[in-house]
Every structure is written in C-alpha cells, then in structure tokens.
C-alpha cells in the first residue's frame, strides 16, 4: 500500500528517513531498538551462554566449549522431553485442529440449531488461563471426587478409569488433551472466518453437481482453506513448543520426568538445578527447532500470507 507521500521517495533508506523523520524514529528505530534489547540480545546471549557453565550467581562463568551439547546428547531426560513434544504436537494437530474445523463447518452449513451458542461455548476456554484450566481438570479427574471417573463407571466403562496424572504411560496425553480442550476455539474461529471468505459460487457449483457434505469438505472446503490451515498448523506448532503452564501446575514433569517437555526442562535445569549453561543449550535446541519450522512454513506454505 503506497501512500501519496511516497512518490517523492528515491527508494533508499536515507532518502526515506530525511523525508519521514517522525515515522523513521518512532515507526522503525524505536521498535527495532526495543526488539534488539528484549528479543534479539536475549537470543544471542542464550547462544553465548550455552558454551559456559554457570550457576546463575557466581561472578565468573566457566567456558566449557561444546560440553553442554555433548552432555545433552547423552541426557535421557532430553530425549524423553523431545519425544513428548512430538507426541504433544500430534495430539494437538489431531484433536483441537480437526475438531475445530468440523465445528466451524457444521456451524457454517447450518446443520445445527443455535450455532452461535456452540461457538461461544467452545471459544470461551481460549480466554481462560491454563493454570485455571489445569486446576479445573485436576478436580474433574480426581480419583475420589472427580466427575469423569464417576461418569465412566456409571455408563459401564469403569475399566477405562486410570490415574490420569499418575500413570506414566498416559499422563502426558492427559495433559495434551486438556491443552486441546482449551485450544479448540482458536482453530474454530480461524476456520469459521476462512469459510466465510470462500466464494458462494464455489459451494453452489459443488452442490449443483450433487456433492454431499463429505465430498464438500474434501474437495471444496479443505483445498480452499489451505492458507488458513497453514496458519493454524504454525500456531499449533509454536503453542506446543511453548507448553509449560499445565505441566507446572499439574505434574511438574512427574512421574519420572515422563511428562517433561523441552519448554519445562529448560526452566527446571536453569532455575531449579541452577545449571544455566545447560539450560541455555536446551534453549538453543528449542530455538533451532522453532526457527527451522518457521523458515520452512514461512518460505513455502505461507508464501504471501504475511505480504506487506
């Protein structure tokens, strides 16, 4: 979007800065400075710190080269956390994203009465803190007074009852599903808005050819919504790398570190075990994963989605 003022610009930054001093200072310099101090510098410092051993208090940091990374390659808990991140991501992509799409489609196709009511109900947990969500499900999934186990027993599914947070085989999935419950509203509103943007004629044409809902979803809605899906997948990716709050309030990584994810392991190693250098090395791993995923997505799938 070029404004009329830009016809005087000669295209170089200096030329622009001369003519637009106010915008250059407050629109470019200030945000870039803030970015450099609070986002750029911390990233660089984290990388720097990953080559040191430091307990967070000592005035001297001890240079150890790649020792932190060497340790990481043999750290059992690092691998558990890495695999858990992958599991968390798969659950997040399957449950909240596809369900969010389904709800959006069903509402848009007017297959249900009171669609806006359902939308409000599903969207509401998006505004809840994950601490509140976690505590709520701590009550719901309690083995004695919890509603969920009682419900299972009363419909004859008592054999499904588990120690939802204590059983090391399922605790992580419990957390991921709770996180999905709170997140579903997000893909839902994105898909809902996306479906509203699909031209009416596209659906009309499919309908005249006698397409049912299944064909409509597969051959019309999903292909048309590919950019929306790309954005949602990216959001979900970063959300799963950030996973922290539910673990902090519910399991703290227990049992046996089986519910640790990278985002929580960093915090534990740095602020509980006072191994800031190792924590920084773990942070670098997260940054590399996040960075490469972002590069792939922004470069390929999202081409044009963020065009200025």
């Amino acid at each position, binding site marked *: 979007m070029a404004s009329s003022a830009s016809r005087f610009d000669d295209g*170089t930054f200096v030329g622009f800065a001369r003519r637009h001093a106010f915008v250059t200072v407050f629109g470019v310099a200030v945000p870039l400075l803030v970015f450099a101090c609070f*986002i750029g510098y911390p990233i660089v410092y984290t990388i720097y710190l990953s080559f040191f051993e430091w307990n967070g208090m000592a005035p001297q940091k001890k240079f150890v080269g790649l020792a932190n990374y060497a340790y990481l390659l043999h750290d059992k808990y690092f691998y558990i956390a890495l695999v858990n991140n992958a599991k968390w991501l798969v659950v997040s992509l399957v449950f909240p994203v596809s369900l969010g799409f389904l709800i959006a489609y069903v509402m848009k*196709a007017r297959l249900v009465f009171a669609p806006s009511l359902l939308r409000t*109900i599903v969207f509401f947990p998006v505004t809840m*803190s994950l601490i509140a969500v976690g505590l709520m499900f701590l009550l719901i999934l*309690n083995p004695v007074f919890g509603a969920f186990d009682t419900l299972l027993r009363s419909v004859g599914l008592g054999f499904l009852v588990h120690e939802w947070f204590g059983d090391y085989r399922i605790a992580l999935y419990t957390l991921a599903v709770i996180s999905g419950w709170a997140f579903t509203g997000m893909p839902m509103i994105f898909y809902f808005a996306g479906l509203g943007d699909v031209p009416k004629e596209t659906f009309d044409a499919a309908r005249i050819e006698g397409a049912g809902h299944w064909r409509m979803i597969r051959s019309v809605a999903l292909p048309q919504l590919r950019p929306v899906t790309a954005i949602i997948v990216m959001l979900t990716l970063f959300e799963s790398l950030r996973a922290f*709050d539910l673990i902090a309030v519910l399991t703290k990584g227990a049992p046996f570190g089986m519910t640790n994810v990278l985002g929580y392991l960093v915090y534990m190693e740095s602020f509980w075990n006072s191994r800031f250098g190792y924590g920084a090395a773990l942070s670098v791993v997260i940054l590399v994963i*996040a960075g490469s995923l972002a590069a792939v997505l*922004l470069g390929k799938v999202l081409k044009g989605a963020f065009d200025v």
Partner: protein
Amino acid sequence: MSDGTLNASAMRRGSFASVLPKLAATLLMLVLAAVWLGPLLLIVMTSIKSNAEFLAGPFALPRSPTIQPYIDVWFGLGFGTLLRNSLIYATAGSALAVTLALVPAFALSRLNVPGRKWIFGLLLTGLMLPQQTVLIPLYDTLRTFHLLDTKIGLIIVHGVYGMPLQVLILRGFMTTIPPEIEKAAYVEGATDFQVFWKVILPLSVPGILVGYTLNFIAIWKEFVFGLVFLNSEENFPVTVGMLKLNSDRYLAVFNLPAAGLVISQLPIVILFILTYRQISGGNLSGAVKG
C-alpha cells in the same frame, strides 16, 4: 454471519438423506456442548456448596447455596492483592504494547518504508519465540536494572512481548482505511505526524480496542514471566498466586478451589461478555491476510 452457502441438503430437503447429516450434527453438538460446558458448570455448582453438602453429593445440584467458600478462598489466597496485580499488569502492559505498535503499524501499512518486509518479518519472530528460551537473559537484564521482582519490570516485559501481535493486528486494520482520506490531507500539506495523529489514529480506534482487549486477556493468562521474574507474594498475578490451590490444604474439599477458579476468571468473563463479538469475529485472521 452464516448465509447458508454450504447448505448441501437444500436440493433434497425432506428426504431421509438430508435429515441424516442434521441429526448427526445435532447429536455431535449436544456431545460437544456437554464436553465444553459440563466442566465449567460443575465447577460453578461446586463453588456454592458447603463442605457437608459437597461430601454428601459431589455432583448433586446445590440445595442450600452459600458464598462461604468464596469468602474463605478470597482471604486464604489474598485474592484482593492478586486481582489488583493482574489488573495492573494487564492494563499497563497492554497500553505499552499498543503504544509501541501504533507508529510501526502506520509506517508498515501506509508508507513505502524501504526494507519494510524485513522489518515486519523481524517483528513477527517475536510472536513465534517460545518465551522459555529467553528467560535467562531477561532475568539477567532485569537484575542489572534492579527490575527483578518489581511490577514495573514485569509490565515492561509484557508490553514488549505484546508489541509484535499488536503491530500485526493494527497494520491489518490500518490497511483497510481507504487511502483517499489521507491523500487529501497530504495535498493540504499535512506532515506524516499530522496524518497519523489526526486521520489514521482516530479511524483506528476500533482496531486499537480489539488489539488492547486481546492483549489484556493474554497478560491475564500469562504465567511463565510472572513465575520466573517475581519473588514476593505482594507482586504475584492471579495465575502465580493460584498455584497454592494445588495443595492438600485446599484439595481436601473441592468447594474452595472451585470458588478460587471462578474468582480468577470473573474479570475475563465480564470482558468476554462485553467484547465477544469483536474478539471472536476473526479479526486475527483478518490481520494475517492483511
């Protein structure tokens, strides 16, 4: 709102084949409503029961509602201080984020800034950055400036990390303002600042309100920064203070933690009711598509 464009069954109305999807969808909706509304209703129900009533029937409808659990948990956790703190963080942090984002959004949406693609891309990385990876340096920086365990320190961090999303939202909103309006102002000899202040800013108020509200909710929900950068209980936001509810003392009977949950969410419920149309209306995706 929906205009029924997807109504595939319209051509075959009345036949069994057209009833089936509707039936399945309605069934699905009932199940979903139960899954999403059930836990919330149960918590509200539990929060107004006395100990005896809860132990007698944890899932029964409350027969003699009481606000005693609210009073007990309010003083037990010091919700007065917690709510006040969260309110300060959310109000001031969002204000800082929006203020920082206004001129960049103006520059990136209305002017031909050389390298704007790079500037925008750089700011967006702030959106994708997992906060845990920068906790140590931020902790260090805050300590250097004696801002660790202070309200002002946390407000600054929230404001800075809220800025990228605000640039995205406001830029998306400002691109929808027709260029003719400011063209007239430029022809009259107005400066960039005058155009920004007198033309773009007043027209952007709806976008600013949406951005501010979303940021407010985000800070209210935030937990990691508060947990790491604060030590004293008098500075804790609701999310950090509430951790105490996960303890034997509060989990003996569920009415107290349930009441605590309701209190912690109440301000957002009010905000949600007031602004629901704006915040759920796909404004975010609109911003992304620009």
